[in-house]
């Protein structure tokens, strides 16, 4: 019984510690983004890695998500004779919910895992210690460009996801199932408001910060992770944890953001 309480206490202490570490890490990273000097090249490079290299997977998932929405939406709306609302149903689903969430999940899998592994390896091979010893702030040098790149990339990737999703829905709804082309776009123009786009934009910005924060900090503190974070196994374990935690956090934050923004 005592053993159970000891273990529970140890778990609780570990997670409180980790939450504190991650909180301070986020603050330091935000400070390093705001504080000069500002170097453009590292930001462009990270935007390429996080954003540009994710475009293909975003296009692919975006178009298929739109196609499924078109397919499901058409058959459901058809039951009520409301297939004319297909365009707005697809667009609203994508812009308000699916676009930001699915794009964030894709970026977590593709870029977030890479960020965590990269920083974890840097920690294990003493590269981060080397930076500190050279009086170079690791937050400024490594984390700041990634945060800025995440903030730039996520809204753009979400916009690409939304547009390709709408086109996917059009391909299935209009091209395959015979919904009216004019009605598809007209209902979209009529029902999608600026507030919907604003909600999607805010969500994608928050998810961008969330992904970079969780994945970077997990890699940065790999040596303090439970069960030991050294070696290839340690890095792979924290990378998995980072992807799982990021994905869960995206869904959790999505609910809270929707509650606040609706």
């Amino acid at each position, binding site marked *: 019984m005592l053993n159970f309480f000891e273990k529970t206490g140890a778990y609780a202490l570990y997670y409180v510690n980790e939450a504190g570490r991650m909180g301070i890490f986020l603050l330091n990273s935000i400070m390093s983004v705001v504080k000069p000097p500002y170097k453009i090249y590292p930001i462009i490079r990270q935007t390429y890695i996080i954003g540009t290299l994710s475009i293909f997977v975003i296009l692919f998932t975006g178009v298929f998500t739109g196609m499924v929405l078109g397919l499901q939406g058409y058959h459901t709306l058809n039951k009520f004779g409301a297939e004319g609302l297909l365009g707005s149903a697809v667009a609203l689903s994508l812009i308000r919910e699916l676009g930001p969430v699915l794009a964030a999940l894709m970026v977590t899998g593709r870029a977030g895992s890479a960020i965590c592994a990269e920083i974890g*390896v*840097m920690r294990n*091979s*003493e*590269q981060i*210690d*080397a930076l*500190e*010893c*050279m*009086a*170079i*702030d690791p937050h400024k*040098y490594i984390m700041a460009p990634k945060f800025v790149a995440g903030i730039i990339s996520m809204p753009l990737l979400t916009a690409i996801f939304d547009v390709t999703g709408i086109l996917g829905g059009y391909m299935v709804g209009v091209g395959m199932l015979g919904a009216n082309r004019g009605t598809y776009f007209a209902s979209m123009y009529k029902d999608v408001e600026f507030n919907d786009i604003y909600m999607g934009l805010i969500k994608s910005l928050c998810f961008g910060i969330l992904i970079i924060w969780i994945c970077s900090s997990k890699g940065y503190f790999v040596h303090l992770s439970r069960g030991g974070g050294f070696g290839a196994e340690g890095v792979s374990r924290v990378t998995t944890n980072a992807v799982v935690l990021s994905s869960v956090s995206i869904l959790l934050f999505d609910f809270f953001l929707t509650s606040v923004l609706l």
Partner: protein
Amino acid sequence: MKEKAVVQMVDVRKSYGSQEVLKGVNLSIIEGKTTVIVGGSGQGKSQIIKHILGLIRPDSGSVIVYGRDISNISKKELKKIRTNFGVLFQNAALFDSMTVFDNVALPLRERTKMSEHEIKKIVSEKLVMMDVEGTNEKYPAQLSGGMRKRVGLARALVLDPKIIFFDEPTTGLDVKKSNEIYRVFSKTQKDLGYTAVIVSHDVPKIFNLADYVALLYNGVVQGRGPSGENQLSDSPMTPEEFQLSDNPIIKEFVETTMGPLYLSEMEV
């Protein structure tokens, strides 16, 4: 001329969970001299360097660098003190995604406002000094272990720091490559006159480079006295004093052909 201690560790203690690694370390690093820290595996030699670099904070005690106790100072002040340091890590800690040139140029680009032309000149000089010229465009993975260490040393020296730390500089190298590292070290130390702190297993060879020797055993730096009391922080031992010491731990170390220390059965 009186020798000046640039680093002093006073009764430094550090524990990880229930394991106490450093149990009251007292150590002085003398300006312009080479201090070698020896001891068995897992005794905490690298911990001493990490404490001086401010990468680890002690549980108690003081680490005084250039008159400032760094065990309790702000990140900003610590960063300022670190501008005096250069470090050659055990595995060189080069950035894998950067070329040799970019690795060595990094401190110049991040910490100075030099033009690329000036940076190129300085980096080239350091690479020549280390006998690794012509590797500018190579990546660390394309270099041998010895070359990586020399590039690491070039990076450590590029801003002409006052103190350079060498964490196991010859680990993983064969005799020939180890000798190359020692040759480069002797040459640069003589030319530039920096203070050196070397953590090494390579005994007795490393003693040829040492001005002072400190033996870390059972979490303390062994003193010169017959009862093995801790060394006073202002009295480091020369290699000669070390070899003639009455301390039974040091005697045992010297007698076992001055090889790596495995004295687990002995009591301090």
